[in-house]
């Protein structure tokens, strides 16, 4: 094998804290899933195979982003860093949240812990009220966009590449704000407010121009924006500008596609719900008033 490729493939950052968190959350979820599965219907409908697969897939995406060569090479190639951010912001959170983790986590815990957790989300609890206030959709959207744009500022980005601590902070805030963002979109538990499909679709579509504008600005910049990359040895014969352009395009096109795809899934769900709505029976709609001016009945 080519020594360069060999060295690249061996560059794994085995971070104990990341591995323990992934194993811990994965085992609690799986335990809860298995318990609910064993109970039979109707909990059987909740503990479906695709949910377990989605959750484990989400954890795998997190693992890939944080310990694989993608993470290590992010310090040398901007495009790798963009792939890492895609995994952290647009792949892992929706996968983890469509698996609806809270009920499975509760069933994966001991009775006492489950009751304590349940009490946190009780309708009268201060925690629930505070969480509801702090996670208003508008606030979550602004927080997500602020972190997304803020960390792509050249000074913040260069600082993150120079310091591991700031780099970790960048990833924690990216992932945390994306979990809040996708929580609103997927409607996973706990449901503190019921958002209509229309609001969720707007939530997604409003993010597309922000993401696309940032991607385009980076892809078509005439000089290196993130100067840290001018100080590291280049790989694969790729110049700093080529690397920057490809990274910007990754952010712009696949990044925007994820939001559009999610919006399309919601639109199709909306249309399916409309199709399934029962039609009115003839005696209801065929009244004299209804026939004279359809749609004007009170």
């Amino acid at each position, binding site marked *: 094998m080519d020594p360069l490729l060999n060295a690249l493939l061996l560059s794994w950052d085995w971070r104990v804290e990341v591995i323990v968190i992934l194993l811990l959350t994965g085992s609690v979820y799986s335990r809860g899933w298995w318990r609910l599965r064993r109970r039979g219907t109707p909990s059987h409908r909740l503990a479906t195979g695709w949910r377990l697969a989605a959750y484990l897939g989400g954890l795998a995406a997190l693992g890939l982003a944080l310990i694989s060569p993608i993470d290590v090479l992010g310090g040398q190639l901007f495009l790798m860093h963009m792939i890492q951010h895609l995994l952290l912001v647009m792949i892992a959170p929706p996968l983890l949240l469509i698996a609806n983790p809270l009920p499975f986590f509760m069933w994966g815990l001991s009775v006492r812990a489950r009751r304590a957790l349940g009490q946190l989300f009780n309708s009268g609890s201060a925690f629930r009220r505070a969480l509801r206030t702090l996670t208003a959709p508008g606030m979550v959207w602004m927080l997500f966009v602020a972190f997304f744009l803020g960390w792509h500022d050249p000074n913040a980005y260069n600082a993150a590449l*120079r310091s591991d601590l700031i780099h970790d902070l960048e990833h924690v805030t990216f992932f945390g704000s994306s979990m809040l963002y996708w929580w609103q979109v997927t409607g996973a538990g706990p449901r503190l407010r019921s958002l209509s499909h229309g609001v969720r679709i707007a939530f997604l579509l409003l993010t597309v121009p922000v993401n696309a504008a940032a991607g385009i600005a980076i892809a078509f910049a005439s000089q290196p924006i993130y100067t840290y990359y001018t100080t590291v*040895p280049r790989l694969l014969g790729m110049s700093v500008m080529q690397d920057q352009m490809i990274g910007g395009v990754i952010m712009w096109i696949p990044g925007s596609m994820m939001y559009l795809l999610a919006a399309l899934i919601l639109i199709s769900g909306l249309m399916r719900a409309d199709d399934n709505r029962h039609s009115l029976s003839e005696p209801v709609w065929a009244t004299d008033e209804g026939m004279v001016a359809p749609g004007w009945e009170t």
Partner: protein
Amino acid sequence: MRLHRTCKGYRLAQSGWPGQSRHRRLPGSACQDKWDSPCRTISHLTRLGRKALRHLAGLALALPFILGGAPGTAQAHGGGTPQLVNAPAGPYQVSVWTQPDSIRAGQKLHISVAVSESSNQAETSNLVLDATVHVQLVHLTPTSETLAAFATHENAVNKLFYETDLDVPTEGEWQVLVEVEGPAGAGSADFHMEALPSSASNTLVRRWPLWGGAGLALLAVGWSVYAFRARRNLPSPTTITTLHADRAPAADVHGEP
């Protein structure tokens, strides 16, 4: 009392949620099933699961202490402050980064080195992966205290780099000399850096995993005391007649089906 007939002739009172069964055998009942008896398998599996969870929680709590107490854990990504960028070193070009940003006496200095073939264009030069890299720190005082170590791929997370850690014992100006020997010959490059005086607050900040771990442990102890007290105040099992074991938590935690 909520009664179950989960196995033939065995009446069970359940005070927890299913899967967490605290089955109590009621007077006048007897379990007739053997291995597949739910009460037996459930309690066995629950016990195992609890044990595993307890171990994992213990590990999670101990982790900050392990990380905080571990001597000389290498820094990660080969990043840091660039000190030399494509500096000529004989037939090679050398780039060197150091972490942390400003070094203090008593701290560990992490040094990452990249070696590439000498070329007019840095972007097309190939990385040299089979060189021997020796790093020397010389204190610029009359005593000329010297520290030395080999930077290797084994010490590096990014296997394209050569990395090493060196303890900087004294404040003042240090010369860092990087010597490279490889198939194309040998060369060296150097730079100077200033080590600041040691600071107690810096040591405290560096040990943040230890303090974080202590805080977590304190929280865990507080939680255990609270849970113990709450448990003591629970009504006796005979009065837990209104608890519906099958009931989901009061909050809507299920989200969308």
